């Protein structure tokens, strides 16, 4: 087998893994958009917030320590304990549910029936607010996150591929774990939305508010639930990205990478988010590998957006999105 082809295979594999991480962020967007018609600009910041909270809880940091010290003149920073990763994740999930409730109670509840652009702007406000709160709560320095996920080269794949092709593939263990977790997450989401009462209610609310009310569904409850689920997805994405590249402000920018994924997959489709993520992941890695050297590299920065733009021209509803037909 020619070397180039073998390298390409490795690139594709790595692209698939990166795509899974993009898909994870995109999923959070789709969930909220489907259920409430809100494009949640704050999804990326939610992932950052979740990751920061998780690190903070694990390290036993005192939330709002700076604020407390500034007001009361103390020097507290830590409780002096460390909390095991699993428990910390559960606690963080609790915080995300609280956040979901707060978002619904203090913001979204008052905007029911407003134009989508108003709701969108509210989520932009939310994003900046949340970013500030996250810094205020846990401090703005870069943190490392280690919940015990395996990292580094997977030796088994390295050896096996070396024996077959005479060239060992470099696949990161973390990417493999991320893929498995993403698959589980999607399976859980599908089971939730198809087979549970709450899932059925969620789909109902997404479809028609009045009809949902008339069969006894509380819109408030469903929206808190949807924001909680989005918070959960943000937490998972935050853990993966945080472990990979540290918990820092740039984490919230991965949300921007989710945009082309959504344009490709469609804003309303869970499978779309996944396939879109994979296409972008593979596409940008492969493009960088094949075309990058010819144009001086760094194509990964713009490839996804150009691809999305081309898609917008020919298929504005995305691969799996609901077709927009307007009768005149």
């Amino acid at each position, binding site marked *: 087998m020619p070397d180039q082809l073998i390298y390409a295979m490795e690139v594709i594999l790595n692209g698939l893994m990166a795509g899974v991480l993009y898909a994870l962020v995109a999923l959070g967007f789709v969930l909220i958009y489907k259920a409430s018609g809100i494009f949640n600009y704050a999804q990326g910041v939610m992932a950052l917030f979740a990751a920061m909270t998780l690190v903070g809880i694990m390290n036993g940091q005192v939330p709002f320590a700076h604020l407390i010290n500034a007001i009361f003149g103390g020097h507290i920073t830590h409780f002096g304990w460390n909390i095991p990763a699993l428990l910390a994740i559960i606690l963080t999930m609790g915080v995300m549910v609280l956040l979901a409730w707060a978002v619904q109670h203090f913001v979204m509840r008052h905007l029911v029936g407003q134009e989508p652009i108003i709701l969108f702007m509210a989520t932009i406000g939310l994003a900046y607010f949340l970013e500030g709160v996250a810094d205020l709560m846990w401090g703005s320095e870069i943190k490392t996150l280690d919940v015990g996920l395996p990292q580094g080269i997977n030796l088994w794949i390295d050896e096996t591929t070396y024996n077959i092709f005479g060239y060992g593939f470099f696949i990161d263990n973390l990417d493999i774990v991320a893929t498995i977790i993403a698959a589980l997450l999607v399976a859980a989401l599908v089971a939730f939305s198809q087979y549970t009462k709450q899932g059925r209610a969620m789909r109902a609310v997404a479809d028609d508010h009045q*009809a*949902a009310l008339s069969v006894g569904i509380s*819109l408030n409850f469903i929206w808190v639930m949807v924001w909680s689920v989005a918070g959960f997805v943000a937490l998972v994405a935050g853990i993966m990205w945080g472990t990979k590249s540290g918990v820092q402000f740039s984490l919230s920018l991965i949300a921007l990478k989710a945009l082309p994924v959504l344009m490709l997959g469609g804003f309303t489709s869970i499978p779309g988010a996944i396939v879109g993520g994979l296409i972008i992941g593979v596409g940008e890695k492969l493009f960088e590998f094949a075309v990058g050297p010819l144009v001086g590299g760094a194509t990964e920065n713009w490839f996804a957006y150009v691809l999305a733009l081309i898609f917008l021209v020919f298929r504005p509803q995305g691969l799996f999105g609901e077709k927009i037909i307007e009768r005149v």
Partner: protein
Amino acid sequence: MLDASEGYVTEDGRKIGGVVMEMKNITLRFGGVVAIKDISFDIREGEIRAIIGPNGAGKSSMLNVISGFYVPQEGEVWFHGKKRPPMKPYEVARQGIARTFQNIALFEGMSVLDNVMTGRLNFMKTNILQQGLWMGKAEAEETENREAVEKIIDFLEIQHIRKTPVSRLPYGLKKRVELARALAAEPKLLLLDEPMAGMNVEEKEDMCRFILDVNDEFGTTIALIEHDMGVVMDLSDRVVVMDYGKKIGDGTPDEVRNNKEVIDAYLGVSHD
């Protein structure tokens, strides 16, 4: 003629029970516009009660008050002998009041079966984990609710479209699916907002038959709004007539038909 507490027997020999719902001096305003003005009437167990009136008479507003979508400024709503505090529409639905809408509010993206199943949401008691993993009582519960739903689907003769997404159905069938969803909730009171609106003669006859059958078979108490006088007179046991937000008549179809004010409202007499 009507006994206030006991109920009565209809012309076709059905026994009508006590008062299920009573509206007392309801007034509803939108800003300066008075949509409903000091209206009182009751709905009795097992009867088909119609609210009729010309366009803009406030019929739909009245239905929305009953189903909790509007909260009246004045007056009281009594349900099963208890005064109802101001409630959200979903709370009213959970009390056993189901409704359909004038402009059809179905879950367009879901199949007919799924749509009707949403009517059973409040009968599902197992928790989210059991349902998601199909454990414990979840399976039995789903089967039980599915059976109830299949019975209604059979009853309304929509078996052939069970799996069809609602968005692909013609208007008349959508109306029927909406009725099925409302019935699935086993309502103590069923509200129908213009069930025959926009239908052709054949569809109207079908719908008429279904409404009568539902009342007959399940003993469901039904309150409906309708435009079509002919249909209403054939269908209902008692009729409330509204005009310009006021009640101008209340009684059996025959009584109402001979009421001068009603005739004036429908034929148009100058209000001077």
